[in-house]
């Protein structure tokens, strides 16, 4: 079942003058990896709280799996919705509360009907998925490092085996290697278990290698919806949405200009996903160089080099 937002608005305190979400309209297919990006205050976090009905639209309607979320109406079986849509907050370590990692990880599954033994198995599996040793089970979550706490909090959501995983800036405090590993893990969950993964982030370059679909939020509005390549072609708009143009975009734009050879002519033909990783970018630069038709008028001026 897909996720469909139909003209969803949200006004905090019911004030229609100040819309935190302003007629947001999009469609997410099952098993997609989706990046929701935008600067601080663009409405990303408000949007994501609609995915499991922590917030409900004040106007419009949201369809999440087989749940219809409407303004002012209570949702039947909200508990089942929240089991199927796992939400990881911006400060997941604040979700921790128990005396041991094991109790923290087992709390969710047991709440949703698992026995203690079943919950423990789920807990161990979730820890392994996230790359932590089961030795941590007996430790207090509050004696772990910041990064480890974050991983445990994320594992506590994975232990509930949700169909949709929604994560708010999940990698902010992780070191770069753990960040890359974590995003790869999410991508694997998405591809091998057909889970829908929605990552809310301001780090566009971090999600680009994985995303099937990008949604860009700006001042409560959805200002862009499309593929990585489509966003690349609208890159000049990013600064107007208060975001920096990512490094791979900048390099490729410069190489397109240098070779007077539009990238779109090449990448669209083979239909693969544009990942903007270093190896993908290197391949495109090679392609641009190989296929460009140089005129003989003396080549391209290279900047500020007079020698």
């Amino acid at each position, binding site marked *: 079942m897909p996720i469909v937002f139909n003209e969803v608005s949200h006004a905090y305190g019911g004030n229609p003058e100040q819309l935190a979400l302003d007629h947001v309209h999009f469609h997410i297919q099952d098993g997609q990896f989706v990046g929701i990006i935008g600067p601080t205050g663009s409405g990303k976090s408000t949007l994501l709280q609609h995915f499991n009905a922590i917030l409900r639209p004040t106007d419009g309607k949201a369809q999440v799996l087989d749940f219809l979320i409407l303004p002012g109406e209570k949702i039947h079986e909200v508990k089942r919705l929240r089991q199927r849509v796992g939400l990881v907050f911006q400060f997941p370590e604040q979700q921790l509360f128990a005396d041991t990692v094991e109790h923290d990880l087992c709390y969710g599954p047991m709440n949703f009907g698992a026995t203690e033994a079943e919950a423990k198995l789920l807990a161990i599996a979730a820890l392994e998925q996230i790359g932590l040793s089961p030795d941590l089970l007996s430790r207090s979550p509050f004696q772990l490092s910041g990064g480890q706490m974050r991983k445990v909090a994320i594992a506590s959501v994975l232990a509930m085996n949700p169909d949709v995983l929604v994560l708010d800036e999940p990698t902010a405090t992780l*070191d770069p290697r753990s960040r890359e590993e974590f995003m790869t893990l999410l991508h694997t969950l998405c591809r091998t278990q057909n889970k829908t993964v929605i990552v809310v982030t301001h780090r566009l370059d971090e999600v680009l290698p994985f995303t099937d679909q990008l949604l860009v939020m700006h001042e409560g509005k959805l200002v862009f919806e499309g593929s990585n390549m489509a966003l690349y072609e609208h890159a000049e708009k990013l600064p107007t949405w208060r*975001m*920096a143009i990512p*490094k791979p975009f900048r390099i490729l734009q410069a190489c397109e200009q240098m070779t007077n050879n539009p990238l779109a002519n090449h990448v669209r033909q083979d239909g693969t996903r544009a990942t903007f990783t*270093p190896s993908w*970018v290197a391949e495109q*630069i*090679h392609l641009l*160089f190989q296929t460009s038709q140089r005129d003989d008028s003396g080549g391209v001026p*290279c900047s500020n080099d007079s020698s």
Partner: protein
Amino acid sequence: MNNPMILMEGVHFSYRGADNNTPILHDISLSIHPGEWVSIIGANGSGKSTLVKLFNGLLRATQGQISIEDTPLTNENLYDIRQQIGYVFQNPENQFIGTTVMEDMVFGLENLSLDHAEMERRVNHYAAKLNIVSLLSKHPGELSGGQKQRAALAAILAMEPRIVIFDEATSMLDEQSRQEVIRIIRDMHQSGSYTIISITHDADEIEASDRVLALADGQIIADAPPSSITRQPDVMGRCNLIPSFYIRLTQQLNISYDVPVHHHADEHGLLEELCQLYSMK
């Protein structure tokens, strides 16, 4: 040669009651000089935050000695020494106390028992410096991430500390706010009035600092300028750092496509070289 601002000699630390006996920090000795900007890098759990919390006595060493400006840290002088050390948290939400930005700034100053005129001078001076004058009457909740971090920093600088510790202070910020905070740290550094310690994974922040201390398994594994650290793959690997996008792109161009560009750490250098190659094609 100046006396060190921070001196650690043979410092060990382990959490009391930890079930295993592996110390979080093991035999750390270091000295940091006045006016230096030092980046502390390391994987999650390597002991970075623990190390800086020893500087201001938030944690106490289980063994070894720590001195701030030649004064050994003791239970008696802890409070005085803490006033010399500002601590900027990762999440600025963690340090707001007042209901307005102004109140928050004043709260710290009241603790220093300053007179009214001096408090006013400092609030005005540092609010102007960090460009938050128009935010003084706002509730911290009304501010954006970057504004919050600037407000938190203004409250800290108003206490006129000698040492300012940034504990992953840019990691929660969006790109624009992150650049803004790095600019502020640069200005502080240039003023020469502060010794700056920043725990970070951010390549731009590391590049901008004078010196990098790399921590792994509770020990210092490297102490060198940033340009030298990024050329040591073993140190980068143990600190869970990844080479910058440009370095990885250059490697790919070399290895996979025989494009003979040199290793460039920045966009400008790489593009310049690609352009030369292209015009010779």
